[in-house]
């Protein structure tokens, strides 16, 4: 997540979504949340 905060060029909802994906990521950087889970993370 820190890496996304520091290096992403996105902002707003897209940045929030990218952070949500990064929050689910494992040590390999891969995440597999459902669309509904991601949607619930973003108000």
């Amino acid at each position: 997540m820190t890496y996304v905060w520091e290096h992403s060029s996105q902002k707003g909802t897209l940045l929030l979504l990218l952070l949500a994906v990064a929050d689910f990521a494992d040590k390999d950087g891969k995440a597999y949340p459902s669309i509904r889970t991601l949607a619930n993370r973003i108000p």
Partner: protein
Amino acid sequence: MSPRNTQRAVIALVASTELAVRSEDGPHGTSIYQVIINETLPLFGVEGGGDNLSHANLSGDKKQGRGVTPRVLGGDTAMSPEPSLTVSREPSTPGATRLRKGKTTIPAGFTISDAVRAWATEHGYEPYIEHHLAHFTDYAKSNGKLYADWDGAFRNCIRSDWGGIRAALVRQGVKPRQKASELFCQDEASPGEVCGLAGVPRGGGAIRCDHHELKHQERTRAPMPPHVRAALDKFKPKAMT
């Protein structure tokens, strides 16, 4: 946020190449996501499963995203796994990095071009341009400045006296040279001739050379009053007999 809007946002992130998606490859049939922000982070491996790596095919939704071209990673017609950002950042000229809108960083070995030197000479900036160049290159490098025309930017630097370089030099006694159009002696006693002492044409100019400045003072000097002349004559040494 609705799942549909979330799906659209995912498609937008995939289009921006900051997110890669492998559809229906995770547990329970969910998609696998990977954040790709820097070139150093690997994309999904292209080994196996490349056929179903459609970014528009998220969570089993077979509809394609509107306005977003599906991007396939891996497979026979796969795009290169290298991020597309590196393509647009190729330097176009040696030593300069082209970033956006034709603007580049300062070229390596930037120096004063003949055109700029001629322009500076014409406008009387020639004694200062080496100092301006040192200030300009340091400023451009340290701030990572981007310009489309570096000669034009340097002319702006000289014209506007960035950093007060010229003003400081003038205070130190470095005099500006006259403009070429001003290199005419103001003395119009014999216009058209060249003043031998000053080496500049006579007549119509904005300056007066030293030689003609003295002559001008002699011509414009008021005549000596008679009583002063008589007093001075008294002190004249008498001729030796």
